[in-house]
């Protein structure tokens, strides 16, 4: 169900852009107005989301420790998996964000006859996720050439490296292909692995179909339908310089592409895609394992009702004295208590 709903949603989006441009000639709407709105929604929404999280306190110091703690000086401790200080945390976070360290731990649990559990190699998800995210990032950065004049050196270098295979004309850019391949893999595993299919929501399929649409329209545009790149750049530069213009004669495929991207931008802050920002705030990862060395303060710590020693001794004083366990209040009080008790009996 989830997959169908999402696929249909993306197809409808494509149709809207196509009809909007082809039939209704709403180039300005799809090329200028909606992209502006989407980018605005993205930034405002994302910032608000981060602020919302940041406003919620971290009451307890709860890093997940994945290695030896720092304790005795002769015990080698795990500086990254169980960092004792800020630098370790920075490295741990960097590895998490840039290399997907935790996902790299992934294993496949299998039950064999015996019964015997085995834990096998399973890095495909890591590989798929890694290729997907890095390809996407590079593709995104490469697109800066549409929004800058002159194009910055690093973007040119990226382009050159990305197209070093020099296949075809224009040169095949690898990351576009790897992005499409990775997103396809991520989709297929959602269909194919029963457990993953079982947990998948429309919100899981939708961004995958959307990104699939974005990558494939991009590839179509560049290699097959070959839109007029000069005019596209005229439009995108106009967007970037806040003096938008809509040149005639850009193919509809471009508007489909940019409409899907706009949808992704606008959808982003309201979806699971906010994990981009969330991972930095995750208290099981971004705290040092030093909570016995350094006090962590809970801003809403409040006094609680406790059972004091005095109350405890009051209840057990006689038994404690009989057992020879020292007590705070001795004879006189107890004598009173005794007399009270005997009064009670009378």
């Amino acid at each position, binding site marked *: 169900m989830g997959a169908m709903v999402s696929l249909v949603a993306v197809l409808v989006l494509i149709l809207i852009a196509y009809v909007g441009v082809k039939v209704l000639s709403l180039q300005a709407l799809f090329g200028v107005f909606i992209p502006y709105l989407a980018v605005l929604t993205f930034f405002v929404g994302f910032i608000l989301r981060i602020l919302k999280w940041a406003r919620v306190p971290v009451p307890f110091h709860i890093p997940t*420790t994945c290695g030896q703690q720092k304790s005795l000086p002769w015990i080698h401790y795990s500086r990254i998996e169980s960092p004792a200080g800020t630098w370790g945390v920075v490295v741990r976070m960097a590895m998490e964000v840039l290399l997907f360290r935790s996902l790299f731990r992934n294993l496949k649990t299998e039950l064999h006859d015996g019964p015997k559990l085995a834990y096998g190699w399973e890095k495909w998800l890591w590989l798929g996720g890694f290729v997907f995210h890095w390809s996407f990032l590079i593709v995104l950065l490469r697109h800066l050439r549409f929004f800058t004049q002159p194009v910055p050196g690093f973007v040119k270098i990226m382009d050159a490296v990305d197209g070093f295979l020099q296949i075809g004309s224009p040169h095949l850019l690898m990351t576009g292909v790897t992005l499409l391949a990775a997103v396809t893999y991520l989709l297929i595993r959602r269909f194919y692995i029963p457990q993953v299919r079982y947990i998948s929501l429309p919100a899981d399929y939708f961004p995958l179909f959307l990104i699939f649409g974005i990558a494939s329209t991009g590839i179509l545009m560049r290699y097959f339908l070959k839109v007029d790149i000069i005019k596209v750049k005229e439009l995108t530069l106009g967007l970037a310089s806040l003096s938008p213009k809509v040149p005639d004669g850009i193919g509809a495929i471009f508007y489909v592409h940019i409409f899907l991207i706009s949808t992704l931008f606008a959808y982003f802050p309201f979806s699971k895609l906010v994990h981009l920002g969330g991972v930095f705030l995750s208290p099981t990862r971004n705290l040092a394992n030093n909570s016995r060395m350094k006090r962590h303060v809970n801003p809403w710590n409040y006094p609680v009702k406790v059972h004091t020693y005095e109350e405890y001794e009051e209840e057990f004083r006689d038994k404690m004295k009989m057992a020879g366990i020292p007590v705070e209040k001795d004879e006189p009080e107890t004598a009173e208590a005794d007399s009270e008790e005997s009064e009670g009996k009378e």
Partner: protein
Amino acid sequence: MAKGAKTPKPEELSKIDYSPPKTRWMETPVEFKPGTFCYGARPKYLEEVDFPNPREWASADEDWKLPENWKEIVLEGMKDRLGKYRSFQLFMDICVRCGACADKCHFYIGSGDPKNMPVLRAELMRSVYRKYFTSGGKLLGKYAGARELTYEVFKEWWYYYYQCTECRRCSVFCPYGIDQAEITIMGRELFNLLGCNTDWIAGPVANCYHKGNHLGLEPHTIQSNIEMMCDDIEEITGIRIEPSFNRKGAEILFVTPSGDLFGLPGVYTCMGYLMLFHELGLDYTWSTYASEGGNFGFFTSNEMAKRLHYKIYAEAKRLGVKYIIGGECGHMWRLIHQYLDTWHGPADFMEVPRSPITGTVFENAKATKMVHVTEFTADLIRHGKLKLDPSRNDHLKITFHDSCNTSRGMGIFEEPRYIIQNVVNHFYEMPEDTIREKTFCCGSGSGLNAGENMELRMRGGFPRANAVRHVHEKYGVNMLANICAIDRAALPTLMQYWVPEVDVCGVHELVGNALVMTGETERTMDLRLEPLPGKEDTEEEDE
């Protein structure tokens, strides 16, 4: 064993079907299977700690006797906690359902129930979160993965949030560190707003609050239990130990889970502490008031946990000790390490712990002033301060079980291993994907070590037991060492079920066996009063 519910045999139980049901999870109603859930809390336990809605009820009942506005209470409770715990708010928002956590949970591995995949266990609550706290969920309903909070849903939460031991294994593998324990903890807080604790948790909580420990041992009983251990130690070593209780002016307060004071094999570990501290001439005291290191309050609510853990610092202050040593316990150490100072600190009335024997200053505990007993002992061994005869443990082939809490909520891996390697001659590790940060839960943590949920416990403990069986078959391992009182209480049953040839012990039991004490008679028995290897003959001669 469980009343009413018969636990299936291992052969039956290990036939696990991992294929998800035909119906979608939101349309698959929860089924309370006997043997997989705990009894509801009796009213007296709730009354004793002023908890709401005390009443007679049974978790298998249709009607849980919830207050009329229960839904409001739950949603208010969620809202409140979303604003107080970043972990909770964040973990409701950022999961991408990649499924990396799915087959990492011991309950999923042992049951095949998809709602035991951490991702889905969390979705049980996330779906409700979306419905009431996100615009997408309000607008799009089930298309946004949102659903109403109904009586059924509430029961479903209850059923599955007491099928999570808060072990954090999923959070090791999650690319964003989403920790199901945090969500389970919130879920259980919500249950307790409506008086829906389990009896097995609520009882120890009430006991601990009033009597100082989960087992409800009164001061004179604690003393006599320890004295009985001293009798055994005297029989074994010829040395009489006279520990002190509630003694003011002692240098060190020793706090351990009450499981070590009562029941086997916990008391053997406790005998190990007693022998070690005596041999060192340590100036320490026991407390009958702070007589519990563990904290079932943590499986109830953070507030209850804080109320119970109050006693440790309060007693340290009253007695005027310089610092505290804590015994072998799992969740106790998660709390000491990650919560205690935040709750009740700063502990500036004490001094930075310094071993009186080696002079080592425990810088890692300079704020909390609490040292783990294996840190303390490892330091002694490293400095050659203990005379050890590991051959006294030669009848044992040891493997070591890393407890969830001390592994993933503290990171104490090397200290116990260093000790073991110095006190035994035969030590074998379990497969690497089942130890250290990837260790498997005993299946009975976080207050699930009751009798009526035995099938659940045997399922949850299956991955742990399976790894033990592997080293048993490969190396002849016959003893499973650990540093956790829940493990010592729960693992013997688990081993009896899956690997009956393997017994369970604490690390300091092994220390006690190996420790050569000044003036001791020749040892013929280990701490279990069983003949030492090569000394069986002497026994026979005696007879």
